[in-house]
């Protein structure tokens, strides 16, 4: 549902969103922080590929639950 915050793990390929909160300081240092736009490119069992701020990141699964996303259309 649009506007409802979800974990990154719940995003589907091709979906867009805005980061609501990010609990991992290491990710915030990379610019993956609240307010940044996200596009889910590929979701795997062990991790996922996302475009954040124009850069493509591969993120392992456990980090998914540290990022809360607000889906956008």
């Amino acid at each position, binding site marked *: 549902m649009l506007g409802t915050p979800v974990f990154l793990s719940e995003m589907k390929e091709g979906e867009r969103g805005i980061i609501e909160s990010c609990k991992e300081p290491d990710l915030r240092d990379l*610019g993956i922080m609240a307010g*940044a736009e996200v596009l889910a490119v590929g979701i795997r069992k*062990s991790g996922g590929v996302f*475009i954040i701020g124009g850069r493509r990141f591969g993120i392992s699964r456990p980090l998914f639950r540290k990022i809360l996303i607000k889906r956008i259309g």
Partner: protein
Amino acid sequence: MQIPPPIFAAAGKERLAVVKNISVLLIGTPNSGKSTLFYALTRKKAETGNRAGVTVSENSARIGSKRLGRGDISVTLFDLPGIYSLTPHTKDEQLTLKKLYEYPADVILNVIDSTSLEAGLHLTLSLRERFPDTPLVIALNMIDELEKLGLYIDEAELEARLGAYASAISASGGKGLAELVEKILGADVARETPKKCCLSEDVAKKDASEIARSVMRKKTGERITKGDYRSMMLSGSKITDRADRLLLSPIFGIPVFVLIVASLFYISFGKVGSFISDAVDLAVTAPIRGLAERSLSGLSAAPWLSSLINGGIMTGICAVLDFLPGILLLSLGLCLLEDSGYLSRVAFLFDAPMRRVGISGKALIPVLLGFGCTVSSVLASRNLTDSRERKICSALLPLISCSARSPLYLAFCATLLPDFSWVLCLLLYSLGICAFLLGVCLLSYLSQGIGKQKAVPELIIELPKYRIPRASVVCLKMKEQTAHFLRRAGTVIFLSSAVTWLTSSFSFGFSFAETSGDSMLLRFSSYVSPLFAPLGFNDPRLVAALISGISAKESALSALCILFGTASVSLSSLISENVLTMHSALSFLVFFSLYLPCFPAMTAIYEESKKLSSLLLSCLSCLTFAYICSFLTYRFSLCFFG
């Protein structure tokens, strides 16, 4: 395509006045093109590649006043490892931040990848906030790629908003470099009255929320870009998307990787490699050897001198030179994988299986670079975030076969498995990876204790866009590789061949040895050789070759040729002389593939930790693995094929 030489201005007359030197720090996110820009401006060698974390140490060069066309000014440029923020996470990032905080730079040159503006602006805003009094010049790199997308950057708007100097460039294409240098010089002149950043009030707010920062980045990006900015920031490249769908697929990803590596080995060590090696032997090494022999006999040189040059130095160097094409082909393959952007994908692809043995997928990058050279792979381990992971990796990386071991592999494999020597080479390289993973498991277990195993750091890795490797970059790398190999042939292998000849020709009393068994080298080797009897090979000459291989791995083959008195050693001749059997030859190869690192690698391992214990751990681990694996290979081979 050649990168045009950097001509910044018409060369002016050099004055005798005191030349002012401007120090410039190159700061930017990883893979934004800092080293490419450094090379374009200074022409000094810099490692480049299409992945984050290629540069792991500081590199500096001076652009002279004559070259700048300004008699009174010169510029010293510092190329530093990439950083995402002003908080360090890896050893190479620590190095950059130390320089940034402790070195009184005149200008900070912030390199931004124009195609990912927001990611770059995150660091720019932090730099503006932390160093408000240091002139900041922004190099908007890869502007040609942005223009292909139909977007343009308003440099004046960016300068006004950030209170910095901005210049759009293409470091690889040599575009906009003269203007950039002018801005650097202009920024230093205006140092006393730094430009005011109109975002400074927002930036200076210590409690500025993350959302405010993100919005600021986004708004700045939107304001300075003419075109469909949002679509560029969020839509991936179609080629990259399609390629990733296959290469990162959970089903096809790993088989495709295996296929790529197998093809690389087939080309390097199979028919193609051996054909080029034969051609090199015919066209280069055989004529050189013949010329040396004719010259020495023409000069009526003393027999010992002829023996030293022909039987020692020339035999040692030529034995290795024949295998240069195979080594270069392997390096070329690794270079293409790195420049295309595939290497980072391998780290992501193998993260889950690697995690099970106690290491993140990121550690696979130094492992693959180890196929080329152990020293560069040890340095690449600086990219790892966890210090425990970094220490274990650098200690065990010598287990990975480097290209310098391949000449001996090929000399033996051609007899062990004719027509499929490349398969045996691939298996020996794979054995190194298996030993490395097993070593990681054991060391993680021993360092943490039972039930206290520390969690493996989570993987977050930047996946660069796929690019077609540029011919100029690949050619430059190959040129450097060839020069590096020839330098080694002219220095380390030359010396080690001479030392091998001397120690195998003279006895401990410094008189000419009547039989080779009386020589220093073989007498010493014969004391050690009983240790190798359980492994199936205890001929002192083989042990001497292993000892010689510690100076440089190629030297092992050179030593074998010198000690057996042949121009090229082959396993069939060793078998016919009853020096080895098929089983012991296999065992010898396994021992050679895993035993001690070479001296330069030992130095690199020590330098990384500054602890002798780390080096000892590395040597001990390698020797233990080599001995056990070699013993098992010999026994299994006797049992199953005996």
